[in-house]
């Protein structure tokens, strides 16, 4: 019974993270694009005058798409047309099952692994499920019975097949390295030792908590820099994001595979794109940036200094809270009566909220966090790890957006040339060099 409850709560947590991130990413994309292009971006939708710098717009979008008419082309293949958006979304959501977002959480004296499914072939599972995503795209493109969607689907197939190979090859180097890394002592009892441990994501991440030559965190990017470049490129291609968003290349094939979808079916494709970005970010963080690991601070260190770290953290939160409250107060003065409606109350609300945060942090300090007991320290370490994972997730998701608004789209022949003529040989070379080096060392 316990295990079902645990698994359900872990699934719930990941689902909440993904869906929350989707909303935040849509906001980040619009606002980031706007600021990069010297615009202000969305700032109109408001709930009682509160605009949250445009965060209300995704909410408004959801309601708009929910109430829109679902227009379907008459020549569609009914079953596949209706299935495709769900397939895309399901695949996007199921990849998260094997991604660890912390090592363990102690609940009532029991150590609960912070990963939904600790598969011993987690990496293969990710590659397999990610390639299933192609089916949704191809199905959508073909079932809509429109030449542009068809072209989009065909492009998606070719692109994903080409880049999946590179993705797998880039990861194999990593697997070789971490199959040779012993799991850290404090986790060995909990995780056990395993044949082919490089394929198991919990081992992979635990191994990245070690130090290389005693000072460098043994993150994937440190041991496999070329592998990282190949992998990140392949991930961008797999998620159909710029500069590889040819399947939807709107200047050539209107909107590509999801052209004939409207209403919530379109919304599913839209959300799936962002969910894929979150996966991509999670994979990059997990494989090459130590997942939940905080550099130089594995769990024993975190637990030993938990009291001091928590105190410092609360002080920092209080300082940031007061700073933001001050900034908002300044805005209250500067923008007095700017709009002449409810929106004028916004800076005051912001100042109030940040003040509450700062005061809560100060209140936390009053509870004397430096005398934290071992149980509290364990919980603090777990929370710090989850926080580190989420921070990396947000950064790499932002990188997707940043790259999109920097680079132009590849031409189709350039895409294929890069995939087959540049990345594939480099991937093979990387694998061979890694194997040779590991044999010698």
């Amino acid at each position, binding site marked *: 019974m316990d295990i079902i409850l645990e698994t359900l709560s872990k699934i719930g947590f990941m689902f909440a993270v993904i869906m929350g991130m989707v909303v935040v990413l849509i906001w980040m994309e619009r606002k980031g694009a706007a600021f*990069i292009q010297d615009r202000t971006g969305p700032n109109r939708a408001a709930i009682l005058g509160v605009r949250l710098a445009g965060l209300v717009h995704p909410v408004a979008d959801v309601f708009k798409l929910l109430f829109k008419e679902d227009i379907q082309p008459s020549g569609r293949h009914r079953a596949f047309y209706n299935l495709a958006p769900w397939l895309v979304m399901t695949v996007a959501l199921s990849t998260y099952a094997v991604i660890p977002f912390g090592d363990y959480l102690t609940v009532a004296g029991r150590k609960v692994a912070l990963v939904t499914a600790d598969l011993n072939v987690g990496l293969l599972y990710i590659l397999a499920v990610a390639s299933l995503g192609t089916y949704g795209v191809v199905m959508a493109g073909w079932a809509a019975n429109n030449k542009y969607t068809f072209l989009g689907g065909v492009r998606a197939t070719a692109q994903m097949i080409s880049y999946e190979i590179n993705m797998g090859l880039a990861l194999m180097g990593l697997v070789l390295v971490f199959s040779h890394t012993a799991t850290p002592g404090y986790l060995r009892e909990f995780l056990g030792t395993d044949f082919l441990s490089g394929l198991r994501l919990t081992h992979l991440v635990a191994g990245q908590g070690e130090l290389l030559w005693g000072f460098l965190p043994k993150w994937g990017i440190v041991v496999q820099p070329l592998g990282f470049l190949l992998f990140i490129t392949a991930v961008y291609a797999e998620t159909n994001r710029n500069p590889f968003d040819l399947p939807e290349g709107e200047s050539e094939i209107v909107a590509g595979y999801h052209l004939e979808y409207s209403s919530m079916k379109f919304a599913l494709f839209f959300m799936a794109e962002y969910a894929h970005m979150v996966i991509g970010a999670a994979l990059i963080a997990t494989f090459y940036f130590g997942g939940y690991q905080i550099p130089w601070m594995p769990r024993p260190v975190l637990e030993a200094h938990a009291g001091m770290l928590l105190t410092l953290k609360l002080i920092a939160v209080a300082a940031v809270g007061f700073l933001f409250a001050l900034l908002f107060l300044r805005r209250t003065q500067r923008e007095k009566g700017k709009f002449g409606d409810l929106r004028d109350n916004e800076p005051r609300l912001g100042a109030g909220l940040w003040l509450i945060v700062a005061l809560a942090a100060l209140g936390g300090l009053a509870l004397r966090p430096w005398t934290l007991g071992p149980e509290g320290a364990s919980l603090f370490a777990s929370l710090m790890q989850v926080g580190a994972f989420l921070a990396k997730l947000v950064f790499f998701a932002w990188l997707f957006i940043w790259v999109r608004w920097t680079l132009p789209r590849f031409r189709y022949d350039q895409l294929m040339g890069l995939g087959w003529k540049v990345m594939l040989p480099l991937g093979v070379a990387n694998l061979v060099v890694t194997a040779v080096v590991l044999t010698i060392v």
Partner: protein
Amino acid sequence: MSFEGLPKGTGAKKASFRDAIYFWEILRGLGVTIKHLVYNIFHTAEMPTMQYPEEKRVYSDRFRGRHRLMQREDGTPRCVACQMCSTVCPADCIAIQGAEHPDSEIEKFPETFEIDLLRCVFCGLCEEACPCDAIRLDTGIYEIAADSREKFIVQKDFLLNNKEDGTY
């Protein structure tokens, strides 16, 4: 990469190694965009975007806005229904029906004077053509919106009392 097929003098060069490996140039591009982003976050006030309904652009006095018909001192239109404006109009958006004016000094007056604002191209030729300065585009009104096509066909009474608030 080869460019044999290209005619000479197109400026196509073989990419240098630095360009061919992409990554250096991608990093430079990312630097450019993040510079804009950070600058704009801390200088929101300098952004060229105009918050339209709250802020409005100031146009010059010569801006051609929505038309108005001028009045005589007694409030009747100055227009003598000579059809010069509707003749010169390139969009053919002015329709005038003239009638005998009760005052024998004045030959005619417009019984109806319609302008289809959806067809008007705001070229100002009607203004130029008018012999008695009866039609002008100097109201400065550019917020011309309505919820049906019929409402854009405006009549004499409306044009004679053209208010700046833009209401129909």
